[in-house]
């Protein structure tokens, strides 16, 4: 309830601001990602003489904000932040998003189909990956797969997974020998979810932290609290830049796209589209954004701009795409509620 009240208060503060017609309110999750967006897209856009002024709005939850803006008919975002997993389908199905006219936005077909859902633009992708502290591995051994992560005898050390069934059920099935391409087939089949939970039961005693915010496992890897932890690829790559001996496991990592959307009834849809064109459809800016945030562009011409060494840590590099699981938001949209309840109860045991 406290969060609710906080939420409504911050909303009230937002509403209190003056909403100028030519302002484009770009919502995102802030932090280093927000800083990069500001420098690479917002500031140049505001100096481009487009007649629009983009303004950053920081939020920590996309879906709840989107819902309340629609419920109260008070839309304060022109661009919503990336919708993770099934959140995009939830928002789209509830009619909270504007449709994208791709023929007008991308007439030359620069973007691949995967980047062009009906209600958003997914020009980049990120992965949920395993971060491995290489100095904590037994002498001469490498952790190469989820089966290795599950192998506590051979690879001892404190571990961390996200406190969510999403992706963990997939990782468990891969640890149980299911190839990445067949994971959702197994999950949809009779007994598939049971099999995943059973496998998760094996690793549960070795998970010291079940994280809820992606910075937790990263902080744990940095301090040595954790030896092996899942997080988002960009954050693990940042640790590397800070000289933490850490490696990303691409085999069986989960590739996500999180579409950038326009809320239904956005006050400045025209400005939002201008901003999207300026920022997300400009390969030069995507190169910079990718370099700054570790997200991988889905534009092949952007990926080509990076060195082989840089591509090794990029989710959309060819060799990494080949070994990853692509998350199926539809599965989670259909099954999240039921599996989530089971997850919470499983956590209590």
């Amino acid at each position, binding site marked *: *309830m*406290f*969060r*609710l*009240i906080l*939420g*409504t*208060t911050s909303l009230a503060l937002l509403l209190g601001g003056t909403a100028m017609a030519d302002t484009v309110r770009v919502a995102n999750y802030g932090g280093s990602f927000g800083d990069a967006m500001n420098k690479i897209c917002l500031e140049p856009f505001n100096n481009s003489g487009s007649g629009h002024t983009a303004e950053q709005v920081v939020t920590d*939850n996309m*879906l*709840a904000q989107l*819902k309340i803006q629609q419920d109260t008919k008070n839309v304060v975002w022109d661009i919503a932040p990336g919708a993770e997993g099934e959140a995009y389908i*939830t928002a789209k199905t509830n009619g909270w998003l504007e449709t994208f006219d791709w023929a007008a936005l991308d007439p030359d077909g620069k973007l691949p189909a995967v980047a062009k859902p009906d209600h958003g633009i997914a020009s980049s992708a990120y992965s949920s990956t395993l971060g491995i502290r290489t100095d904590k591995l037994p002498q001469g051994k490498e952790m190469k797969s989820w089966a290795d992560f599950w192998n506590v005898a051979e690879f001892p050390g*404190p571990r961390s997974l996200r*406190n969510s069934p999403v992706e963990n059920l997939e990782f468990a099935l891969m640890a149980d020998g299911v190839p990445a391409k067949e994971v959702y087939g197994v999950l949809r089949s009779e007994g598939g979810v049971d099999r995943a939970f059973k496998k998760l039961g094996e690793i549960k005693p070795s998970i*010291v*932290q*079940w994280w*809820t*915010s992606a910075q*937790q496992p990263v*902080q744990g890897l940095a*301090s*040595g*609290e954790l030896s092996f932890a899942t997080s988002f690829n960009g954050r693990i790559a940042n640790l590397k830049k800070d000289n933490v001996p850490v490696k990303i496991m691409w085999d069986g990592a989960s590739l996500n796209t999180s579409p950038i959307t326009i809320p239904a009834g956005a006050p400045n849809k025209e400005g939002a589209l201008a901003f999207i064109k300026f920022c997300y459809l400009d390969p030069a800016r995507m190169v910079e954004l990718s370099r700054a945030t570790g997200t991988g562009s889905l534009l092949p011409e952007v990926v080509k701009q990076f060195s082989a060494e840089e591509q090794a840590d990029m989710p959309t590099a060819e060799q990494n795409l080949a070994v990853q699981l692509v998350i199926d938001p539809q599965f989670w949209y259909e099954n*999240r*509620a039921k599996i*989530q*309840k089971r997850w*919470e*109860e499983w*956590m*209590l045991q």
Partner: protein
Amino acid sequence: MSTGPASVSGGARWRSWRIVSMRSEGSSAWLLAPAALLLAVCFVAPILVVFRWSFFADGPTLEFYREIFGSTLYRTILARTLVFSLVAAVLSVVIGYPAAYFLATRPVRTRMNWLAVVLLPLWVSSLIRTYSWLILLGREGPANMALMALGLTDQPIQFLYGRGIVYAAMVQVLLPMAVTIMYAGMLSIEQTFIKAARILGASPAYAFRKVFLPLSASGITNALVICFVLSLGFFITPNLLGGPREAMISNMIDRAVNESLEWNLAAALGVVLLLVGIAVAGILAFAIRLLTSPGRMPR
């Protein structure tokens, strides 16, 4: 919350003053208006909306309450939230009481300096204070390094993500509040009462137990209730320092609001928490009054 340092009732309250204040109550009620208006708009109205959400989906329904009380999950977590909050509040009061006594019995000149020391932690955000535990008690943190250097343990101790550290961090956040509330109550206790008891032959311990403790009871009650109510809403501490076995009801509400968008359920959880919180706080206040009642001593 109507209780706070400002409304802590002291020991020495003169009958005549009470009569005067009661007589003037009607005419000065307007003094409450600004606060009442603010609370009505920013507090009462949203709570009414939350109540409504908890009882209405497409029509009036009790399904959300049935879901809460019908599932082991929510019952377990609700019970856990109450136990955590109670233990943390009691610990804060027990640890804070001697400190408050120390403060209240300092000469006026040095009192403020001591008070500043107690309040200093409040200048640091509770998020940072919580994070500092992660660093201090980590496997490779200073505490474990010291223990290993001293040869007290050869393997780092797993302090984080357990119950002990959640309690420690909760008490750390609550302690300055508990101390200042009890201190404010103790200030209004006439030291001459203790002197009188001593002159009449009471030992220092007896005088404390029979005179000072009962007079400080309202401060204890206020501190206990406020710490308890604050703990009920703790969110960051169990989230960052505890494991799934430390998840509290606010973490479930967060999940329901932000991830699964089950707002009716979240509202019902909020209402249950509010009502149970009020009930337990009431019982607490009553129990303390009973326990510390001075018996035959005139009040």
